[in-house]
């Protein structure tokens, strides 16, 4: 283990000042940073701890939006009644995230900033139209989550920037499902999230599908969404989305599964995510 400089920031401004123009890295939960240090991905830099910054740790409700501070832990998401009611997909993602000890320290901001294609909160947040709010010492900006990820491990974030919070829209009919080799402590083979609205005739009037671990970044599944729009979410429809879903994804062979297997099971996961979203309609 390398020796690292370490500074505990207690305010957003202090953190941003420490980050500005320096060879520094943000650490919140540390569940990614420590493995990065061990594997040599991070070397010789200063760690700026932001987990004690109170202004980064909150879950708030407006009329049609929920705002989540970047340092909210996965356990907090899991326990939050607001998330359970208005962002069910995110609640479900938190429930199958890693294991209890990781959940107690890993943060939602960290899960996004690490930009793993398999980040479990990402598909859930994508179907809730998440917007990521970013600050540096001299500026602020916001980016839709769908434009936030650039490549595996890469986002639009600059080295001097910090995610402060994430804004998402309320939607009671959303769902998330994960396929992994274990029920706990498992990096996803495929994840699928959905947010679905039906009209009075039971026809899909709006629909958002997001997928994880089947492309270089977590993605919105545009072909699948178009395929589903104006259809009834019955078994025939859900069994026929294979073609559309396969147009959305570009999976690879990795240590967890082959690309072929991911192509086989992604449509199944989409189907199940939709069923979960519509659970109360069943």
């Amino acid at each position, binding site marked *: *283990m390398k020796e690292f400089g370490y500074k505990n920031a207690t305010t957003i401004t202090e953190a941003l000042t420490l980050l500005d123009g320096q060879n520094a890295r943000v650490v919140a939960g540390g569940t990614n940073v420590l493995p990065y240090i061990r594997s040599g991905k991070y070397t010789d830099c200063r760690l700026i701890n932001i987990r004690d910054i109170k202004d980064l740790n909150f879950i708030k409700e407006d009329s049609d939006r929920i705002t989540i501070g970047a340092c909210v832990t996965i356990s907090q998401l899991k326990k939050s009644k607001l998330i359970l009611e208005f962002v069910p997909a995110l609640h479900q993602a938190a429930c199958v995230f890693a294991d209890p000890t990781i959940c107690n320290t890993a943060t939602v901001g960290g899960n996004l900033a690490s930009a793993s294609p398999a980040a479990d909160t990402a598909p859930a947040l994508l179907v809730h139209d998440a917007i990521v709010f970013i600050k540096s010492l001299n500026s602020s900006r916001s980016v839709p989550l769908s434009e936030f990820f650039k490549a595996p491990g890469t986002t639009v974030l600059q080295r001097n920037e910090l995610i402060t919070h994430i804004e998402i829209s309320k939607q009671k009919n959303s769902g998330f499902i994960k396929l992994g080799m274990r029920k706990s402590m498992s990096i996803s083979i495929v994840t699928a999230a959905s947010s679905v609205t039906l009209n009075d005739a039971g026809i899909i009037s709006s629909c958002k599908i997001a997928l994880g671990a089947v492309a270089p970044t977590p993605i919105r599944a545009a072909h699948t969404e178009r395929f589903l729009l104006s259809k009834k979410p019955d078994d025939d429809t859900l069994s026929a989305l294979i073609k559309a879903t396969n147009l959305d994804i570009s999976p690879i062979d990795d240590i*967890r599964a082959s690309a072929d297997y991911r192509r086989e*099971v992604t449509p199944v996961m989409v189907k199940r995510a939709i069923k979960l979203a519509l659970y109360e309609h069943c």
Partner: protein
Amino acid sequence: MMQKRNLKLVGNAVPRHDAAAKAKGEQLYSDDWTMPNMLYAKVLRSAYPAAILRGVNTKKAKALPGVHAVLTADDVPLNEDITKFGQMRDVGGGFEGLYKVLARGKIRSKSEAIALVAAETEEIAEEALKLIEVDYEVTEGVFDPREALLPGAYVVSSEDSSNEIMRTQVQCGDIEEAFKRCDVIIEDDYQTTPHEHAYIETEGGMGWLDENGVITLRVGVQVLEHYRTVAKIMGLPHTKVRNIGVPMGGGFGGKEDITVETYLALLIAATRRPVKMVWTREESMETHAKRHPEYLHYKTGATKDGKILAQEISIVMDGGSYTYLTPWVQMYSTYGAVGPYNVPNVHVQSVSAFTNNTFSSANRGFGGPQVNFACERQMDRIADALGIDRVELRRRNLMHNGDRLPTGFIPQGHIGVSEIMDKVEAELNKTKKPDRLPDGRKIGRAIAVGHMVYGRLTFMHDSSRVSIRIELDGSVTVRAGVPDLGGGQASVICQIVAEELGLDMEDVHAYIMDTHLTPLCGTTTATRQLYMSGNATLKATAIMKERLLPVASKLLGYPSENLAFGDHSIYLVNNPAIRIPFVTVVGHLSNDGGELETIAQFNAPFTEVPDLSDIKGQLNPDLTYTCHGVEVAVDEETGMYEILRLIAAVDAGKMINKNSCEGQMEGGCLYNAWWPTHEDLQWRNGITKANNFSTYYIPTAADMPDVETIIMESGGGLGPYGAKGVGEPSDNSIAPAVVNAIRDAIGTDMNLNKMPITPEKILAAIKARDSK
């Protein structure tokens, strides 16, 4: 069978002597010891699985401030010796392979140690590793033992001319003639993958040079007797190396091979400072031995009424880079291949070969689970082909008391496999669910049986010694060189002493595993400690009782044969009110000049090394029989499955500690439950792709149901009180039970014979079934 006796402690769920310390986190493990002035050590491993080592330049590494030693093969007094595993004699016959301390000549795998570093800090030691310049001539290598055995194959070692390690066979009856009389013959290939022990504590320890010039180690290891090898490597008498063993956070066979001991000794001698070495998880998984991957061919023939007449089996074992325990494991695979069945005509051939993979050696079950997997898959398939119930087919062929193994040996212990199978079948059928769960998953069930030896190969001439000393206050110290892996190996000895001398567990103090101070008990391997050291303990207590009884007899005025030990007293059996305190008798014995201390040795049966071209007779003291019942739910859209029920049954002969016995059965069951499907090291041309617990999937608590244990006590074992060993047998029949349950659910045998049986392969089998 043992005579019935009223036992107070034996058989109960007695808390282990070390339970409280472990529960409170006070137990010190290998990494928990430090000393002032201590250096940290690291090993440079090979960058390639196959290469010729042209040279090593350590100049830059040595020049790094804070580095105190950088050693290569040239610095090792005796760099090459034979591998020993605590046996009290050299067996010969090809059973002891080469132990090479540091690389020289051909590099045989990525785990090969090239250089050792000791430095002020772990960081400096790591930095120094990067500064060592190694000149490799990279070679092609060979990674499949079947290829390694072909003429003209790449030769793995510089010391041998071929890759063959050992070839052996067992035969009985007339196999050709028997197949002609069979109504159905099932013939197929099976493959098993390497299997990781996945102990929570990686290999490690520390050591120092004591004031008497003794290299003193604190290393958690299953074989304390490796101190002899360390001494030989260092050119020292055996008396100048001491290992004060440390309780281990798991061993499972992975700490049977020598690990850090020699490296520490070399660095201590070079620096004359205390040195610590602890392997990282990745280093541990890439370096230590694995369960042998086996390539098996089974041909099984049966008559239409379900009598198995013939089994012809050939086995190719991947020994990996060095011999280590391969020949011993091979004996178990060869001898256990037909399973606990009466098969009159048998021919088993096996061969093991070097490859450039991580070496293979001991892993809980020791060659048993591989053949058990293939054998029990075959049994279900024979049953299906004949239209006979799968459990019934087994019932018609199982061994009973007096039956012979294919070597002609008649096991002396009770053969209770049919009794436990009946119990598992009844239990599994108690909760018959519909064929599908409400979520659509398909249910499957299966039962598999197994037999597995306890006690070492009898031609090793195994022995164990235990000493007890009674203190003047009536408490007792037991000294035993029993490495404790967490299975309660030491506690059970205390329990026997307390039982025999009529004391409580609290009265017995265990001082264990110190090669200078404890009698050598031999290895904690081969499911042997209860059998060997338990019997030695009984012998030692019998000697002490022989000394105490005449004293008590004189004091009480009754003949010795009418007296018994209990409640801290010696009392008259038919009138327990007539008694004298134990401590009083001890006082008198001491006063009279009697000996309060003794050591006793137990010897297992001894045989000679068998003729490998035709193995006959006894190879092990006895066997333990197991049966596992499994219920699974298979998701037919993803190929994922979940285990809903796990039933683990054994004839334990006699439970000594109920907690420990049940714990072994539960642990063993979980140990191999995911081996066929999830626990895949993903070896690719000598590289271990899954080298940590995020990619090598051992089950978590969330993935497994509670294990339901069924423990039968026939009293028919060779251990104390009629006990049999359960440590390794506990993991023997679970893997085929899981795979056969998946087979039962999906209704096809496709893709279920060759591990790893991934969800992808299960899904492909389901799709192929549906497209028919």
